[in-house]
């Protein structure tokens, strides 16, 4: 070992190799794993990076803003002696930042007295509060059948050409703390929105910004934008910075924070690119074996903790490559998150909005957020019955396509009719339609009443008496 001193703060001239976004530096002295690094190129421009691997007197660094223009001799690096920390403050709401957290709205640097490590730390399960308060989104398919609760992480699984951005917009605009059906409590809501865009197109970023502006929410939103033509490695940092701010807002400022992250697929592509450049053993489809842990480190930064009034609810958006739900990105995500909202191309083609495909969709935390005292006593069984009935509709439809609709048994014809009403009246609603939980449940009963009472085997008889055919 040549040097035994920590090289923190020292400028080390010259790097050994550059390969994609990865550089290797030798004769470094002592460098810490995961240390934050500044890279100064020959034109005296500074970029930042992170130590991925250290040995005796060498370090491997990923450079967030790309390596083009770096020369081996003309580049120097400065190790910071600490991991990447970002400023966090309430003032950051209402502002727009780039993927590295620098303001791009021509405003001043936000004042911050607090700095936080972007990697965060795992929440102790004993310190969590189990999420039980539902969020009313005003969207029937979500509120009735995939109810969100505060502190949950639910991704939207979509595909290109499907209006997931519109749906995310609508959720953000309409989300409020849910109350019991029929009551009309207006609560003081401390909602804040943290938006992380990873590799998104300029017009997508613009449409979100416009939507926030139009709804008057912009002063409650912090946007972090890594655009499609921004450096790829930066995408790996953007959501971490956004979540670091979200944690501060939720657990220190007691706000209910809704985090929208789009597009996770781009994030995973960046992960694959780095892994590939480092020559790591790939697992499925070339994605690194640690993608599960890596994504978990994002998604698990959600929830509620004791001693704080706030919460973090995550709505990551991902476009399934080739609409394939078994692709590693949606697959791994589904294993980590607490459910998923799946959008359907078939419904989109029929111009049904929001095109939520209910059968593969799921909210794992719904069971504790609905029912008596929360939404309405009949809600859980009603939701289960809707699922069962709509699942049967699929069988009936495939049968009808063989033998013809007229040949269906009378019961199946009812199911056929139910299926149509379900999609046209229940799923379908306009972008600006904000249905109360009571309206949603009423529509559900109206369409279920198409079926004979004897088919509603999952609902209590007393509830059938109470609600059947009344809407």
């Amino acid at each position, binding site marked *: *070992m040549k040097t035994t001193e920590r090289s923190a703060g020292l400028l080390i001239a010259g790097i050994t190799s550059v390969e994609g976004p990865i550089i290797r530096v030798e004769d470094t002295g*002592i460098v*810490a*794993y*995961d*240390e934050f690094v500044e890279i100064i190129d020959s034109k005296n421009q500074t970029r930042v990076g992170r130590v*991925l*691997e*250290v040995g*005796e007197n060498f370090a491997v660094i990923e450079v967030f803003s790309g390596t083009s223009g770096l020369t081996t001799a003309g580049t120097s690096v400065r190790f910071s002696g600490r991991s990447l920390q970002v400023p966090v403050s309430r003032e950051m709401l209402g502002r727009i930042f780039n993927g590295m957290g620098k303001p791009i709205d021509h405003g001043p640097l936000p004042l911050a007295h607090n700095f936080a490590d972007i990697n965060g*730390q*795992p*929440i*102790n*399960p*004993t*310190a*969590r*509060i*189990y*999420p039980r308060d539902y969020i009313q989104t005003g969207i029937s398919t979500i509120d009735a059948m995939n109810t969100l609760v505060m502190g*949950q992480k639910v991704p939207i699984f979509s595909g290109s050409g499907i209006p997931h951005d519109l749906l995310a917009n609508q959720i953000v605009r309409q989300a409020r703390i849910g109350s019991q059906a029929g009551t009309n409590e207006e609560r003081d809501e401390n909602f804040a929105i943290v938006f992380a865009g990873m590799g998104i197109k300029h017009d997508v970023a613009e449409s979100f910004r416009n939507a926030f502006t139009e709804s008057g929410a912009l002063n409650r939103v912090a946007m972090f934008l890594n655009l499609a033509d921004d450096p790829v490695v930066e995408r790996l940092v953007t959501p971490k910075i956004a979540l670091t701010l979200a944690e501060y807002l939720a657990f220190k400022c007691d706000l209910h924070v809704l985090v929208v992250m789009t597009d996770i697929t781009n994030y995973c592509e960046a992960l694959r690119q780095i892994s590939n450049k480092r020559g790591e*053993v*790939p*697992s499925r489809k070339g994605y690194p*074996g*640690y993608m*599960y*842990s890596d994504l*978990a*480190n994002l*998604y*698990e930064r959600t929830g509620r903790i*004791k001693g704080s009034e706030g919460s973090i609810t995550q709505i990551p958006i991902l476009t399934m490559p080739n609409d394939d739900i*078994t*692709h*590693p990105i949606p*697959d791994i995500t*589904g*294993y*980590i998150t*607490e*459910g*998923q909202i799946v959008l359907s191309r078939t419904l989109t083609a029929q111009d049904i909005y929001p095109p939520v495909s209910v*059968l*593969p969709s*799921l909210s794992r935390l719904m*069971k*504790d957020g609905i029912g008596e005292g929360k939404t309405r006593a009949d809600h*859980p069984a009603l939701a*289960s019955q809707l*699922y*069962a009935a709509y*699942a049967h509709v699929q069988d009936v439809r495939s*049968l009808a396509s*063989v*033998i013809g609709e007229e*040949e269906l*048994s009378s019961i199946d014809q009812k199911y056929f009719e139910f299926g149509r009403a379900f999609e046209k009246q229940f799923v379908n609603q306009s972008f600006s339609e904000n249905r109360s939980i009571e309206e949603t449940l009423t529509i559900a009963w109206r369409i279920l009443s198409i079926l004979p009472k004897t088919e509603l*085997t999952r609902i209590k008889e007393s509830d059938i008496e109470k609600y059947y055919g009344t809407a």
Partner: protein
Amino acid sequence: MTDAAAVITWINGPVIRARGSSKIAMGDMVGVSDQNLIGEVIGLHDDEMTIQVFEETSGLTPGMPVYSTGLPLSVELAPGLIGSIFDGIQRPLPVIERKTGSFIGRGFGLTPLDRRTRWSFTPLLIKGNKVSEGIAIGSVPETGVITHKIMIPHGISGTLTWVAPANDYTIDEVIARVETEHGEEPITMLRRCPVRKARSFKNRKEKNEPLLTGQRVLDTFFPLVKGGSAIIPGGFGTGKTITQHQVAKWSDADVVVYIGCGERGNEMTEVLQEFPKLIDPRSKRPLMERTILIANTSNMQVAARDASVYTGITIAEYYRDMGYHVALMADSTSRWAEAMREISGRLEEMPAQEGYPAYLSSRLAEFYERAGLVETFNGDTGSVSIIGAVSPPGGDFSEPVTQQTRQYTRVFWGLDKNLASARHFPSVNWLNSYSEYLDNVTEWWQAETQMPWRELRAKAMQILTEEGHLDQIVKLVGPDALPDDQRVTLETARLLREAFLQQNALDEIDTYATPQKQMKMLELILHFQARAEAVVSRGAIINTIQELPILNSLIRMKNTIPNEQLERLDEIRNALDEQFDQLELLYR
């Protein structure tokens, strides 16, 4: 801690290398840096060792010291385990919360078990008794349902020279002394036991008692035995975790060890908050009084996932050795396999299938073989049953972890995506699941329920299989084209699915069914089939049967008739007979 044994030379995520000692053995637990992060030696090459670190390695630098503990990776065993929640390396999470707040910090030498609590010890043996490994010398009431036996540790045998009188002691106070060949050994209640090696016992016994879960599809159709092992594979959203929770709640094991391996934080919190409130139907005590939780959530350090599985199984074996039936749930073993893959990748080992290391299979084998029904050294009978969830990528059961696990387990509870999306839970697919323990438990069921379990089960399975075939035809031509006797089969199959197999975990009555209730329900449905077939053969058309009001009672019997009022099932049977009698009158 002694002087530094080695210094760090290389760091790559959870894997580090260090150089400088030939005294540290393979598998030894080490303290990394002055923060004493816990690590385990997983490779040796000359004087350079490879270490996996169970805590976050951010901020470590080459040149930092590595300390030897001289022990292999171990767990602490003593009263106080039950009702606790630990992380993967047995650090008590509530204590961590008190120390570092809501987020998990690192690097503090926490003892897993509290040293100050005093436990009420009662001696079982006296001075002069001969003792050896596993012999109980005293007992401690640990919770309302568990009496903790204090056993002679591994490697000690001789004559008791002193046993403490009945009183309250802490776990590291001496409570006995044994005169051995090598001198007198003090005995405390606390044991340290290596986790990677199975604990020993006298011999294995034949398994023929079912591990009841109260879940009809599992108990009646695909039974697990005490000491057996089962696998629950299923894609995301098919209900693996709910099934695991149901078994943890209602199984008739004495002790439950629940390992949340690389899963969601909120799920562990749910268990933590729910179990103390739930009452065990047998002991009438809170479920937490028999439960040990090990939580390694998906965002905790990956190497600790590997450790969590071994920590759990070693604790399970310890209670087995006291003569308890222990059920161990691991959710999900795929995350453990992935942790192996990640570490293996960082070591640049040659990958086998899908990037998993070639030793995946042997690790799984070693783990599942630690299940078993045994006679302990103390002469008791105890068991460890393993129920491992597997999360196959894309729900595809042909992937390596599912296939390899299948090799070493004898019960397969395959979860089905289509059933799950119709919200048919538990979504166990009855056509591809199996149990190899049918012969083992046949006698038990007969004796317990006084009903021909095996025959009823076979009949029901036959109907469901036939439905599978008929469904293909129905899909092509519609049900109306089938003859009425086949439609009776379809109708019975529907009853089996909706009234029997489907079980609502959230319904107070339906969540748990006794073997008696299961058998009576099944018999009733098959009785329906017999009567329906008879009346159809006389010329009745299927619609008249479908319109019988009894069908509604049959479908609702699971959540209207509690386990304590099974005589009400006889009333349904009478009503059923009455309605069919009347129908038969029309077709005489």
